[in-house]
């Protein structure tokens, strides 16, 4: 069973009276444990595709399933539940709940999953340690650098033991050194926990680090290389 299966997925936006085809019958299969980069020029549909795979939006055509679960006929509540248990998200920026500390941001997910307090704390700290944030548990997002914030987001995405992490340009706001180190962390998690990663990027360094590179243009996949 594939981690992600998208077949003939289309998404059309209306910009005023103009129809914009953001995705045009895109099909993509991702196996468990893959480390996939989505590349392509601005406006090619990367974000749209990631959002659809994560159930953050509805396609106008085609079928999407994650771990064999078809999204058709799932309510927004069901989709939230599915994300909570199986999918982690990392966005370009402003990922975190600003009033929570790093630890609370990570812990909150476990709380949503109904985990006990002691266990939550232990897991959250271990995960923050894992992404290189020892001792920064009590910092609010505003007191963390961009790279540190992204690490918290990665820790939060990972802590719930998801099978799939979707990251939309996670390194776009980071300098190359910080970006590289975040990417290394992601790769480690991919290898250590066997979590499937799909991330979009403009950055050639990130593309090079990917094990599979899917290139998009004008809402379609134009190239798909496994390295």
């Amino acid at each position, binding site marked *: 069973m594939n981690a992600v299966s998208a077949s003939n997925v289309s998404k059309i936006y209306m910009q005023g009276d103009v129809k914009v085809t953001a995705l045009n019958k895109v099909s993509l299969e991702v196996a468990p444990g893959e480390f996939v980069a989505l590349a392509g020029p601005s406006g090619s549909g990367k974000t749209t595709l990631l959002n659809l795979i*994560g159930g*953050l939006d509805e396609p106008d055509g085609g079928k999407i399933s994650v771990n064999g679960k078809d999204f058709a006929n799932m309510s927004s*509540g069901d989709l*939230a539940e599915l994300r*909570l*248990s199986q999918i982690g998200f990392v*966005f370009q920026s*402003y990922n975190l709940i600003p*009033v929570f500390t790093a630890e609370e941001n990570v812990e*909150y997910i476990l709380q949503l999953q109904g985990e006990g307090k002691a266990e939550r704390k232990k897991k959250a700290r271990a995960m923050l340690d894992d992404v290189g944030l020892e001792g920064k548990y009590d910092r609010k997002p505003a007191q963390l650098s961009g790279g540190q914030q992204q690490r918290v987001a990665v820790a939060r995405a990972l802590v719930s033991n998801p099978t799939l992490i979707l990251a939309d340009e996670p390194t776009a706001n980071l300098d190359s050194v910080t970006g590289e180190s975040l990417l290394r962390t992601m790769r480690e998690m991919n290898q250590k926990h066997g979590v499937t990663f799909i991330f979009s990027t403009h950055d050639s360094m990130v593309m090079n680090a990917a094990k599979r590179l899917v290139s998009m243009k004008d809402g379609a996949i134009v190239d798909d290389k496994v390295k």
Partner: protein
Amino acid sequence: MGDLKLAWRNIWRHTRRSILTMMAIGFASLLLVFMLSFQFGSYEGMIDASVRLSTGHLQVQAQGYHDKPEMRKVVKNPRKVMDALSRTPGVEACTARCQTFVLASSEDRTRGVMIMGVDPETESRVLKTSSLIRQGEYLSSDDPNTVIIGALLAERLKIGLGEELTILGQARDGSIAATVMTVRGIFKSGIDEVDRSTVQMLLTDFDQLFGMDGAVHAVVAVVHKLTEVGEIKNTVMQDDALKGLAVLDWMELSPGLKQSIQMDLVSGIIMYVILIIVVAFSIMNTFLMAVFERTREFGVMMAIGVKPLRLVKIILMESMFMTGLGLLFGMILGALLTQYFAGAGISMGGAADLMAQYGISGRMYPRLSLITLFSGPILIGVVTFFTALLPALRIPRLKPANAMKAV
């Protein structure tokens, strides 16, 4: 727990805005607590004044007398009724009265007047007529064959102290009753209707003149606490001594007073509703802002697996925290303010002197009760809940993907 913490901290993200919102809610509830207490307090003052000037809180009369007063509809044994009233807990004092319409003439004028027979000893414990005397003196049992008359009536009859008033009426048995009385005092109640047409005499004189044979038309009672009138009325009605008699409370005795209170209450309520709506609109803005400016954040939260309804709950918790704090402060301050003035009273300014002349206290005393303390704040709480619900209900309609595109 995490949601509570989240909601609580979210309030303090915009400390000033949240505090202003809480102050608006708090001030509105303070105002409502105080104004309602004041209103209810002033009703008690009005009722008390009116009751003690004329009707008393309760009257025992013959059946049908109130609707159609007739000389022959009497309470035959007032002593028994007064004993029954006196032993009823909560009754402060009672007195017996007779009354009828007669022609009253001075040297050169004649008027139709209402003449009342009262017992000065018991009457003065119940009503304040004695304090209304402007000239001369109040009735005294040592000085029979005298009357006190209303000031306006005295003017019309062109009669003064020590002068003679001729009275002509019909006795209880239908025969003619006529006598001459000396004016002992002139009173002014401030109620023109009363001052224009009332004459009071000793109950014993009345009894003789009209052949009452010890019977009276009403036994008038005042009670210690206005709120207990209904209860006392019920107790009294059970008493064997009152068998076959009617017991009327102040609302039945002066329906106009009850009506004017109801009208005042309605206009008060309309004002409070307007106040609450104004407050609701002003805090609606805060609640709307709190939702709009965080659209992106909600998108992120839904993306990490928070269900839309849970977000609604968090938002409602935020607004309920703010409302709760505001209400709490408003109620505490409102109660303190009310209690302070309940002790000190509020002077009614220029009107105070005028009122004092007629034996009405010139100060108003707000009265805090469960109703005045809770009804306003509860109403505000309900309204703010719905005010907060409206913007919060937008959340489930957000698509996370679109929400995250918001800035």
